């Protein structure tokens, strides 16, 4: 036990861990940015087109919702395999961190889109009606009422979504993308190098804590500023 702990803090261990941290962060940051952009766009589309939404489009909403649900029901692993040809087309190869980002994004965008939609739905109808009553245009209601009013909830959901991104990056290791999850499996599990596993898991825990605390501070800051 003590041996293992000692080994966790040796140079050799960190020679493996440090590049893995780089890979994990690379995948996380890229996927998060793409997830934020497309998740918000799709969330807005879902919110606007619902039955009693600001721009109801029943067929679009139903089809679109079904696609999102289908993507959400597929295991990330399956999505990675299915997107390999696509990745090859876009980044030139079907493996490595860049290739895997497409699959990660496809996994995380539908989830975040639903989170964004549900944050928007929490905004009291009366506020939207008040905006309508003064003749606000749909985009004004969206960007001056619904989005800012739901900001604390959006931030909390975003935090949860980033943490989900970090956890799916672990899968990417199977496709040569590296990362901490990969280290934990390849060294820790396959080669019985427990200290590698411990080190990788420790770093993952620290990253996740960091994201969660950051998100909490941000959300609380917004709430406090508004005196809610």
């Amino acid at each position, binding site marked *: 036990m003590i041996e293992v702990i000692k080994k966790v803090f040796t140079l050799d261990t960190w020679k493996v861990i440090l590049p893995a941290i780089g890979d994990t962060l690379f995948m996380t940051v890229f996927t998060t940015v793409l997830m934020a952009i497309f998740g918000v766009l799709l969330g807005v589309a879902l919110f606007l087109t619902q039955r009693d939404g600001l721009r109801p489009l029943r067929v679009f909403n139903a089809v679109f919702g079904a696609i999102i649900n289908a993507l959400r029901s597929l295991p990330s692993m399956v999505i990675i395999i299915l997107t390999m040809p696509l990745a090859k087309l876009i980044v030139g190869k079907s493996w490595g961190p860049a290739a895997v980002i497409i699959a990660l994004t496809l996994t995380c965008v539908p989830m975040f889109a639903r989170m964004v939609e549900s944050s928007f739905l929490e905004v009291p109808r*009366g506020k939207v009606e008040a905006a309508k*009553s003064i003749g606000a245009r749909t985009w*004004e209601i969206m960007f*001056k009422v619904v989005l*800012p009013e739901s*900001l604390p909830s959006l931030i909390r959901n975003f935090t949860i979504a980033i943490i989900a991104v970090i956890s799916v990056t672990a899968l990417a290791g199977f496709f040569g993308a590296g990362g901490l999850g990969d280290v934990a499996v390849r060294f820790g599990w396959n080669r019985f190098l427990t200290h590698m596993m411990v080190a990788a898991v420790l770093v993952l825990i620290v990253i996740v804590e960091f994201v969660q605390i950051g998100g909490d501070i941000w959300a609380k800051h917004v709430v406090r500023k508004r*005196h809610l």
Partner: protein
Amino acid sequence: MSNNAFIRIEHLYKTFSTQKEQIEVLKDINLEIEKGDIFGIVGFSGAGKSTLLRCINRLEEPDSGSVFVGEQEITALAHDELLAFRRKLGMIFQQFNLLDSRTVRGNVSFPLEVARLNRADIARRVDEILELVDLSDRISFFPGQLSGGQKQRVGIARALANDPVVLLSDEATSALDPQIALSVLDLLRSINEKLGLTIIVVTHQLEVVKYACRHIAVLEAGSIVEQGSVAQVLTNPTSDTMQVFVKVNSNLTAGALTEGSGI
């Protein structure tokens, strides 16, 4: 009625369909409201008061019938024209419906941004209107820092910001304690006098009618059962609704007005 009716509602019908049933909420509503009036719409809960009010700015789309404001037939407006019309109309709500993400200044600016005024004009107008509702010293506060009465005054300021021709009020004083409610009604009365604004007040409280309105219409299960000047209707109520209202009201002692009859 009079020839100078400013708001005319003709043969208005509205039905809500739920999965199980069709609820006929408004049945053949006919109304005329003069310019500069404070007009009350009263009735029991569920009578259709809010629905009628919301048909005037088409927050609710009537099934048939027409609404005229001035020369315009509101029920015939295309979407863009409707938005333009709404910018000339203010609405206040029981739950205030202010934006928590904006300060008092930001809330009152909102309709002016929508109306595409430039920044300097917005700033000037916001100062002016906050002066009118006596909230100049709270301009940088968020709604979360205001009392109910102050919130409703911000709501009124927002509704008045773009110089509306009509103000719609849906139970605007129902969530406030009697004293504060009285001060909000005073504010509405003084705005009515100063600006000549036509105000339509939905309420289930006779005190509000007595204190603020000149004419009323009584709504009972989706139909107007009685209308006229307040004095006329109160001294000689003919509808069941109004007889109950007047009876309950006269059973209350005079003191009850300030002790929680909830103006």
